[in-house]
């Protein structure tokens, strides 16, 4: 298949940036979206051009590095799929595809499609941890956890920190990410000692980074490759209000 790509090119954080159009030919429908970009980049390199910079690592949907807004939708329109797991068979021959980086003030563009997501790291640092006695591993099942809680905590813990929720949110809010991290810990007994201080610190850090507030649009859950549910945000709100009493 042949494609026309409109890609955001930006030399560095200070560059203004612009959309540049490329033609990519002989793309196999079995290629992943990133492999298609690899093909284009190889050609750009051979032609002496600067290849398009994009983040990626595992290419199997588990690391959260990849991510771009494809035709206006974070990770593309395929539901519950990271960009690296998106395949070209979902596009039509001769399609025009717009590719942009995550757009949010706390995610400054480093180059082209690469954004700096370390704001997420600082949110985690603010409270996304538990205190455990160091030493030998504890006995299994010494702390009982209800099955429903274990399942819900695990679901929340599957967040890979990709940032698609921020990219999709009309308010540029990081609520789904932060809520996933808070919920993951606050449903488990190990997370109880710091439960209140965690919610407070992480919500405050989220604000301090410059993310917007949540208006419950649900756009985040809809694009989240891990399907993190909206009720994690209710859990975050509950914990935050509890901590402010």
């Amino acid at each position: 298949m042949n494609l026309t790509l409109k890609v955001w090119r930006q030399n560095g954080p200070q560059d203004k940036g612009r959309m540049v159009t490329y033609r990519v030919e002989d793309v196999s429908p079995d290629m992943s979206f990133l492999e298609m970009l690899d093909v284009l980049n190889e050609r750009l390199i051979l032609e002496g051009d600067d290849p398009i910079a994009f983040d990626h690592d595992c290419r199997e949907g588990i690391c959260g590095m990849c991510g771009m807004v494809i035709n206006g939708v974070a990770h593309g329109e395929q539901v519950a799929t990271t960009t690296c797991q998106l395949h070209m068979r979902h596009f039509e021959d001769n399609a025009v595809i717009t590719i942009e980086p995550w757009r949010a003030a706390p995610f400054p563009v480093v180059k082209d499609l690469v954004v700096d997501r370390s704001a997420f790291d600082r949110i985690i640092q603010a409270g996304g941890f538990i205190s455990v006695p160091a030493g030998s591993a504890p006995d299994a099942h010494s702390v009982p956890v209800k099955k429903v809680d274990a399942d819900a905590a695990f679901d929340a813990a599957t967040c890979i920190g990709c940032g698609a929720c921020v990219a999709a949110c009309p308010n540029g809010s990081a609520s789904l990410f932060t809520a996933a991290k808070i919920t993951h810990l606050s449903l488990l007994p190990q997370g109880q000692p710091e439960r209140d201080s965690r919610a407070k610190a992480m919500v405050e850090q989220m604000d301090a980074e410059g993310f917007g507030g949540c208006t419950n649009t649900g756009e985040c859950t809809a694009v989240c490759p891990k399907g993190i549910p909206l009720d994690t945000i209710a859990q975050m709100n509950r914990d935050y209000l509890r901590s402010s009493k």
Partner: protein
Amino acid sequence: MIERGTSTAPVDPPAGTPAKPVTTGTTRRKSVGFLGSSNGRKAVMAVTGAVLVLFLVGHMTGNLKAFFGAASFNEYANFLRTMGEPLLPYRVALTLVEVVLGACIVLHMWSAVSLARRAGKARPVKYAAKRKSQAGGYAVHTMRYGGVVILLFVIYHLLDLTFGTVNPAGWDGTPYERLVAGFAPERWWVTLFYAVAVVMVGLHLRHGLWSAFQTLGLASGRSYRPLKGAAAAISAVLVLGFLVVPVAVMSGVIK
């Protein structure tokens, strides 16, 4: 602050990037406090919104008195002013209610406007491709401009039926006379404005009612369906209940 190994990439932003974190390295976090945080402001929005919803339910029910004739409607209007007597002097209870409602509107708007500004700042560069809504909400995207329409309407509405400033029956008329004169057929544009505003309130609450539960942490996985259902039902009842009176005046059922 967590100790990081040397193999971990630095999490400080690269030099020259615009991100301005409060916590980097060893700087202390500046506490923004409950009302400074977006969650706190959103909670203010939810609580004040809930008070306003209770008011709307009462207001709508009272309006329906118009169907029982002028005497019944005026008697109800008079009751509002004499509420609390003889314990409280004339109009004191009503004034208290008005002050609370006014404060709620101001706080609700403060929260809405300040959060909208934060949201604007969080996305300085817009997407080139038109962002497609993946969640398929409609009402949620009317909240901000709908709120402005509601505010403009409330101002007109008070001048029309409360103060009588822009009402043909004026301040000297009875409440019932102001109602009939205000929505008279030749003043069809008043009813039109009223209808648009009421529909906006309906959309506002279609999203706002369940959103308030979510904001206050009272929603959970299983409660979304009933909450959204109830939000739709209550919004529909309010819209119909508010529309039926002016439509009845327009069509001569109430005269």
